[in-house]
C-alpha cells in the first residue's frame, strides 16, 4: 500500500498551501517527501527545476539545512537543550559562523515574543511557547519554504490560533508555507489554496485567493 500515490501539484513562491485530510491520508508523508526527509519510490519532486531524486544524500541534507524549515505537531525540541540552543542547532548545518548563531537565534526568539524564555528548557515552556520555539528554529536559517505538519495538533484553541496567525504573518512577509492539518476552518481564513487528501491520493483542490509569484 502506498502512503502517497499519484499526487501531482505545483507550488508558487509565496504561496500558503494547506493540505487537509483525515489521519493516515498521507499529509505527513507528502510533507516529508517535499522536505527531502523521505524519498519517493517513484515519481519526482522538482525544486526550482532541480529534481530532488537526482541529488545525493549530502545535497539533500544541504537542501534541508538551507532551504527548508520544518515544524512538527510534537514540536520535536531537544529536551536537554535550552530554547536558545534548540534554535541555534538549526544553524549548525548551514555553515553559519559560530559568533552569528547566538545573535540570530536570540533575535528570532525575541521576534516571536520569547525573549524571557531563552534559557528555559522545553519542559519549562507551555505548548504554545514550545511551538513558537520550534517555529523560531525553522525560521532562523531563513528558509525558502516552511513545512508545518499539524502545527496546532497539540495546542489548545487560543494557542492554535496564535500559531496559525504567526505562520500566516510569515507568509505575508513572503515565505512559502505548506501546512498539513485537519483543521479546515482555520485554513480557510489564511491559505491561498487548500488541497484535500484521502488514502494517499489528491481528493480535491480549492483555490481561496490568488497569489502572485513564480512556481517553486
Amino acid at each position: 500500500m502506498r502512503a502517497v500515490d499519484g499526487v501531482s501539484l505545483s507550488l508558487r513562491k509565496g504561496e500558503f498551501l494547506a493540505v487537509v485530510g483525515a489521519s493516515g491520508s498521507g499529509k505527513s508523508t507528502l510533507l516529508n517527501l517535499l522536505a527531502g526527509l523521505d524519498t519517493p519510490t517513484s515519481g519526482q519532486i522538482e525544486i526550482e527545476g532541480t529534481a530532488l531524486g537526482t541529488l545525493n544524500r549530502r545535497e539533500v541534507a544541504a537542501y534541508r539545512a538551507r532551504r527548508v524549515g520544518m515544524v512538527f505537531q510534537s514540536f520535536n525540541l531537544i529536551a536537554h537543550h535550552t530554547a536558545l540552543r534548540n534554535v541555534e542547532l538549526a544553524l549548525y548545518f548551514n555553515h553559519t559562523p559560530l559568533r552569528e548563531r547566538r545573535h540570530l537565534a536570540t533575535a528570532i526568539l525575541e521576534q516571536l515574543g520569547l525573549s524571557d524564555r531563552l534559557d528555559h528548557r522545553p519542559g519549562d515552556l507551555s505548548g504554545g511557547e514550545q511551538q513558537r520555539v520550534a517555529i523560531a528554529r525553522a525560521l532562523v536559517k531563513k528558509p525558502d519554504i516552511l513545512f508545518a505538519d499539524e502545527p496546532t495538533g497539540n495546542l489548545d484553541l487560543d494557542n492554535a490560533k496564535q500559531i496559525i496567525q504567526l505562520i500566516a504573518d510569515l507568509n505575508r512577509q513572503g515565505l512559502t508555507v505548506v501546512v498539513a492539518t485537519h483543521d479546515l476552518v482555520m485554513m480557510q481564513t489564511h491559505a491561498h489554496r487548500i488541497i484535500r487528501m484521502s488514502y494517499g491520493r489528491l481528493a480535491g483542490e480549492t483555490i481561496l485567493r490568488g497569489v502572485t509569484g513564480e512556481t517553486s
Partner: protein
Amino acid sequence: MTFQDLLHSSTGNLWRMKLRSFLTISGVVIAIAAFVSMLSFGAGMQRNVSEQYDKLGLFSTMQVYPPDKSKIADSIGKAAVLDQDAVRGLSAIPGVVLAYPFDAFPVTVAIADTVLATTAQALPEAAVQTKLFSQMRAGAVFTGDSSDQAVVSEDLLEILRIKDPDSLLGQRLVVSAKIAILDSGIVHVFRGLPAHLHERFDQIRWDSLNNGEYWSRLGREEVTATLSRFADGFLNARSVVTDTLRISGVIEGRTHGRATVKSVIIAAGRAARFRTGGFSDDPAELLGALRSGTLFAPAGAMGGKEYPQVTLSLDPNVAYEPIRDSVKARGFRTFSYAEEFKEIRKFFLYFNLGLSVVGLIALITASLGIVNTMVMSIIERTREIGVLKSLGAEDRDIRLLFLAESGMIGSIGATIGILFGWLITRVASVIAHLIMVREGIPKFELFVLPPWLILSAFLFGLVVSLVAGLYPAARAARVDPVEALRNE
C-alpha cells in the same frame, strides 16, 4: 558542524548521563592505568640497562678472545695468538682508541694486620681512565703507568669487613707474588756443588776409566742429577717479589661478566716487576710461551704471555662493525656490547609488546563498555537524531557526533588512566625502594614514564575508543529521520 560544536555536544551528552559515563570511563581508566604502569616498568628496566651500559662506556667497548681451541684443532694453518704483539696490532686498527689485555695474577696482599690471597690485575693508566673503571666508591684511580698507588675493589672490602671505603684511602698495601725464575733453578744446581763433586769423585771406579760405556753411563747420571736439581730449584725455590703500594681508590666490584674487576688493580708498569725474569706458574701460559718461542724473551717484554682477553676501547663516532670484522680477520673471537645491546633492545621490544597485549585486552574489555554505552545512547536519542537530520545534518555529521562522544570517553579515560597509572608506579616505586634498602641493594628506579609512553597511552586509549565508537556511529548515521520522528 565545527570541532567546537562536536566538543560541546559530546561533553554535554556525557555530562547529562553522569553515572553511565563515569562507569564507562572507569573501564578505560583501569585499562590505561594497567597499560601505563606495566610499560613504565618495562621502560624503567630498559633505561636501567641502557644507563649501566652508558655509565661503563660499554657501547664503545669490545672484548677480543683467542680463537676457539676446538676449531684450531680442525684447522690447518697457524692459530692466532693473543699476545703483546697481537695487542699492538689490535690497537692499530682504525677506530680503536685503546687496546689492553686482561692480565691477572695471583698475589698475597697485606692491609694493616690482615693478609689474604687474592688476584691482582695489571692495567695501563689509559685503561683505568676509561668509563669501564670510572665507578669509584671512594678516591680516584692511579695516575702514571709506574704509579706506586693501587685501586682495590669493594669485594676486597667485604672480605676485610670494612664498611667505609674512605677508610682505606692512603693505606699501605703490601703485594707479594711468588715467581719461578731461571736463577732459582741454576742456583740450586750449583748449591752444594763441591760436596756433590766430592761424593762423585769418591764413587769413580778408576779401573773402568778406559771403558767408553762407563763414561757414557757416568755422563747420563750426571746430566739427570743436574736436571733434577734444576727442576727442584725452579719449582720449589721460587722467589717472592714484594711491592708496597698505597691505596688511591676503591672501585665498584664486578665479579661476573666480561668486564670483571679483580680485587687489586696495579699500574701495568709497576706490575711488571712481578714477572721480570720469571715465568708464569700457570702451565698453560708456560706452554704458550714455549710454543710461541718467547719463553726466554727479554725481561719486561712479557712477549711470551698469551692473554685470555683483550679489551678494546673504540671511538664512539666510528661504527663497531668494521672493527669487529677487522679483529675477526686476524683470527680472534669478538664480543661487542653494542651488538649485545641490540639483542637486549629486541628483548625489551618483545617484553613491552607482551605487556601491551595485556593492556590491550583490558582496553578491549573497556571498549565493549563504550559500545554498550553508545548503543544505549542511540536508542535513547533516536528522535534527536531525526530532528538533527530534519535540520540538515548529514550522515557524516551524525557519525562524527557519536564518534566525538566515544573519542571523548577515550580521551578522558586515557588522561585519568595515565595519571592513575603514574600514581600506581609511584606507590610501587616507594615499596620497591623500601625493600631494596632492607635487602641492602643499591636503590634504583624501577619505573619511568617517558613522554613517548604518555603519548602512546593517550593515543592507545583514544584510538581504541574511536574504533569502539565506529559501529554505534555508523548505526546512528543510518537512522531514518522519518521513522525517528514518528517515534514519540
